[in-house]
């Protein structure tokens, strides 16, 4: 024990001697861990949040596919679907996209349906008349609607329509509502010029969730051009969107592993003459091969543990206290409207362990293993200076 403490002491002196190199490694290492951890924290938080809040999605969404594309669905499909055993309610949903040439942004225009007029995360009210709208924080900010309380959009007949802003969603809900423009269903139909009797899709409520799949099959049989999307598929989407196979994770992990490999390679090949001499001296004055390897082990632990913990701390603070401001600029891509992430902190301990094994263990190995060869040779060469 005391031996290890002393060797740690010497390892620290030894590292301090190579200050610039060690600081460079520390910075590179910390940044690698911080990037990795930020991505993991962010995606995990998004995933956890999604599984919680998407509990409220419709049991079943029924789209119509025409010519391989999503098409408007006849509302009278709803009548027949309602007759299927187990279905308690079918509501048409009216929504579409609106490209705003003024701000070069895409909004999602949605019918509010029969939602309660007052909602907790909404300042104001949902639209009650055809001339009102409720907008997400992003739209409000982009269009200055929070000052003017008005929003002008150009409808499908190329006529500007003026809406009174009756409500603005609070920023806490931005992840869901940032780009929304909510109108009444009638207003959406009129605005987009939907054919009468058509909706964007149908939201189906099923009494017993075990029967969802059966209901979906029945709908498909009844309407061959329909495409039912089950709640399970909806909620699983976000599990999958941020999984290990997704592009972002792949890219980041590859980059991180590459960075570490370069570092390891540098260490493995670069045991300098100076280091060799030092090992020789230590052996000549009575250190065992084991003692030299212990020294290198602790050098590796010191560098990798401090970098690992620092990186972890940085990324945690970055993601959960600074709303992932660095990562979100990367995530943003071409999005004009991009929500601020106010994430509920949730961390998967397994992720921390995974990162530990992916970064700390290889680093220590790459510190100890190259020393091996030098450490087992006879120290005679130091006699020759």
């Amino acid at each position, binding site marked *: 024990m*005391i*031996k290890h403490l*002393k*060797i740690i*002491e*010497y390892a620290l*002196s*030894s590292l301090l*001697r190579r200050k610039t190199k060690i600081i460079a490694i520390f910075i590179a290492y910390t940044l690698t861990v911080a990037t990795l951890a930020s991505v993991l924290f962010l995606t995990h938080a998004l995933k956890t949040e999604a599984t919680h809040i998407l509990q409220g999605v419709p049991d079943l969404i029924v789209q119509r596919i025409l010519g391989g594309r999503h098409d408007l669905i006849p509302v009278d499909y709803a009548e027949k679907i309602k007759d299927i055993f187990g279905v308690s309610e079918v509501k048409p949903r009216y929504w579409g996209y609106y490209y705003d040439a003024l701000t070069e942004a895409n909004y999602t225009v949605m019918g509010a349906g029969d939602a309660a007029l007052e909602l907790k995360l909404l300042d104001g009210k949902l639209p009650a008349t055809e001339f009102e709208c409720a907008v997400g924080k992003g739209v409000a900010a982009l269009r200055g609607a929070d000052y003017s309380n008005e929003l002008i959009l150009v409808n499908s007949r190329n006529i500007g329509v003026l809406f009174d802003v009756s409500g603005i969603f609070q920023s806490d809900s931005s992840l869901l509502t940032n780009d929304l423009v909510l109108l009444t269903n009638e207003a959406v139909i009129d605005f987009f010029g939907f054919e009468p009797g058509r909706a964007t899709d149908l939201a189906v409520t099923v009494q017993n969730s075990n029967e969802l799949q059966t209901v979906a099959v029945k709908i498909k049989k009844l309407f061959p051009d329909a495409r039912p999307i089950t709640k399970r598929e909806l909620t699983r989407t976000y599990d999958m969107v941020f999984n290990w196979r997704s592009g972002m994770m792949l890219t980041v992990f590859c980059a991180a592993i590459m960075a570490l490999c370069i570092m390891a390679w540098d260490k493995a090949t670069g045991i300098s003459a100076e280091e060799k*001499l*030092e090992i*020789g*001296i*230590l*052996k*000549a*004055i*009575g*250190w*065992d*091969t084991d*003692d030299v390897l212990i020294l290198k082990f602790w050098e590796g632990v010191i560098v990798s543990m401090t970098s690992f913990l620092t990186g972890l701390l940085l990324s945690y603070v970055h993601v959960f206290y600074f709303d992932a401001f660095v990562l979100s600029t990367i995530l943003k891509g071409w999005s004009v409207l991009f929500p601020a992430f106010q994430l509920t902190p949730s961390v998967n301990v397994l992720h921390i362990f995974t990162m530990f094994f992916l970064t700390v263990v290889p680093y220590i190995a790459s510190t100890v293993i190259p020393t091996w060869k030098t450490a*087992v040779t*006879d*120290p*005679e060469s*130091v*006699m*020759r*200076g």
Partner: protein
Amino acid sequence: MAYIEIEGLSKVYNVGRADELTALADVSLSIDSGEVAVLTGSSGSGKTSLLSLIGCMARPTQGKVIIAGKDVAKLPERFLTAVRRKRFGFIFQQFNLIRDVSVLENVLLPLYPLDLGMSAMKDKAMPILEKLKISHKKNLKVKNLSGGEQQRVAIARALINEPEVIIADEPTAHLDRRLAQEFLDILEVLNHEGKTIVIATHDPFVYDNRLVGKTVSMRDGRIEGVTIH
């Protein structure tokens, strides 16, 4: 029986290769406990090679190295380290100190792998540093010391394990006359304390000194003659 006993020792470098070189050929020698022995000979005659074999820093190609009655030539590496640590203190030609580390830390270095507390280690080191008159510089980095001071640090490091044998390779090569004399004075004290001393040198100032009990002259990896004073 002699403390160090060498029988039929040879050392061949790069065995089986084009640059194969016989550094020592069939050398036999004995050094008694408490003796001051000097290896002389021109550069390349095999002094350093012989010293490293005596000091368990390398293995012979052939022959026996018997230290205190035990043949160490074929001991496994772990035991070799133990013998080196227990019995030998080395003073290298280039000093071989860790330059960016303090004097005290350099001197304590041989004790690090032992189960000995830091304060106990310092208690051991301080009298030695005082005896060698460098205790006032114990916190300085070695690279900031003069050549003579550096050598005294190297001596202190060689003494910290209380070795029975001091091995010094060309110890005066980097010293002027005055410092060389100081070095010999220190050796004299150590010898009076009972330490066996083996020095390799081609400096007449050293091998002509009255301290020396035995001179071994070497040439081309062989012993030419042994003079006992």
